[in-house]
């Protein structure tokens, strides 16, 4: 259920690297734990993310949770569909529910992330 071509943080965000750019989002596990997501506060394009630092907020019906950047870099695009349809984070977290595209500042940071097997272990039981 966690795609093999992604890297994962312990805070339940994923990264899909394509050259010097990466797409980031939250995992299906995270979306399930949050429940129905009703609001997303996105970073602005141009914002600089720092690995493992907060870069936005997701709100479920009941709770407010921080989003933590899985990698550092500059935001080039944000998924504006999420403003109108935050539920994409629940229905399609690895696809249509992507959150931002980032120009990577240090690809070595990827080594601090988990592969799908290690992430599956982290979220098991």
């Amino acid at each position, binding site marked *: 259920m966690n795609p093999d071509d992604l890297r994962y943080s312990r805070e339940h965000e994923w990264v899909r690297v394509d050259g010097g750019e990466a797409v980031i989002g939250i995992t299906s596990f995270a979306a399930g734990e949050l*429940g*129905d997501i*009703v*609001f997303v*506060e996105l970073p602005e394009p141009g914002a600089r993310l720092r690995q493992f630092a907060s870069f936005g*907020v997701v*709100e*479920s*019906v*009941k709770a*407010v949770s921080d989003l933590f950047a899985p990698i550092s870099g500059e935001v080039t695009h944000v998924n504006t569909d999420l*403003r109108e349809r935050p539920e994409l984070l629940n229905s399609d977290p690895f696809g249509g529910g992507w959150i931002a595209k980032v120009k990577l500042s240090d690809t070595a940071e990827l080594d601090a992330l988990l592969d799908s097997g290690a992430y599956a272990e982290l979220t098991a039981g």
Partner: protein
Amino acid sequence: MTEAPVALRRTPLHAAHEALGARLVPYAGYEMPVQYGSIIEEHRTVRAAVGLFDLSHMGELLVTGPEALAFARYAVVSDPGALEPGQAQYSMLCAEDGGIIDDLIVYRTDEGYLIVCNAANHDAVVAHLGELRERGDFDAAVEDRSERTALIAPQGPRAAELLASLTDLDPGSLGYYHSLRGTVAGIDCLVARTGYTGEDGFELFCDARRAPALWDALLAAGAGLSIRPCGLGSRDTLRLEAGMPLYGNELDRTVNPFEANLGRVVKLEKGEFVGRAALASVQQAGPRRKLVGLVMRDNAIARHGYPVLIDGREEGVVTSGTASPTLDQRIAMAYLPAQAAAVGDEVEVVVRDRPYRAEQVKLPFYKRPRE
């Protein structure tokens, strides 16, 4: 997941919740289902069909004896003397200073006056009632039936239809805020037409040992009515849309009923009762702050504890807020200075250090369509 530091109590339906895949969370000392699946789906099920709640954590205290009524009238701010047999009323226990100790429902039953209180306040209510009974030397007894009583609530426009399929009673003819004793699925119940969802519905009190059988029978009979088990998550969004206060959010020891728009519940003319002097002076002078409804005009959700600004100054506080599943709006309730409470006026709510516009609106946010 970390283990809870203290042992949580379980309702008689705990095994049923686990079998249904509920997410269980600590609430008022109990391990309670917050949701079985999607809170939004559960919420919509109650608005459109029928949802089933386990409310067995709530407290049930039976007041009996020759002076049961005199004692009840002295303890609560409403007038249980106005209750016909089988009738119920929303009420509150207030302290001498008028602060709310709990909000509750008083049912006049064939056994006496049944007080149903919040689980989180159960111990405080029992202690308070015990103290009052001794102080006033009332010839009345307060029996704590909370442990032995389960409470199961089918709520929604199809709740009456559901019950009718399981009982010889005529649930449709039972008046709002009325109760009667009967059997549902062969199980003895006190059947009350009360609830906390803003929808038609019932609350069924039964012996805790029979609760699993009653729960299963209701779910089975409701299969054709699109029934869902519903958790405390949807209970909270449903009551918020209906503008109903939640103790711990809108109500607490520092709030009096007039501030919470519950002045109509207080019967000053009934004679002496706890808190009367303080409440009479609040009524005369008018409350200093008032509970208002807010709809967010900017893109943010107000939550419990967020500051409210009037003309840029922090003057109020949000008590509850969410994205309303029924209305497609972001709604909240908040306390504002009484002179600032005005439907149509704009305020700002501070969300993560930034102000967002909100408009004061009339409560409730949602009113069910009446037949």
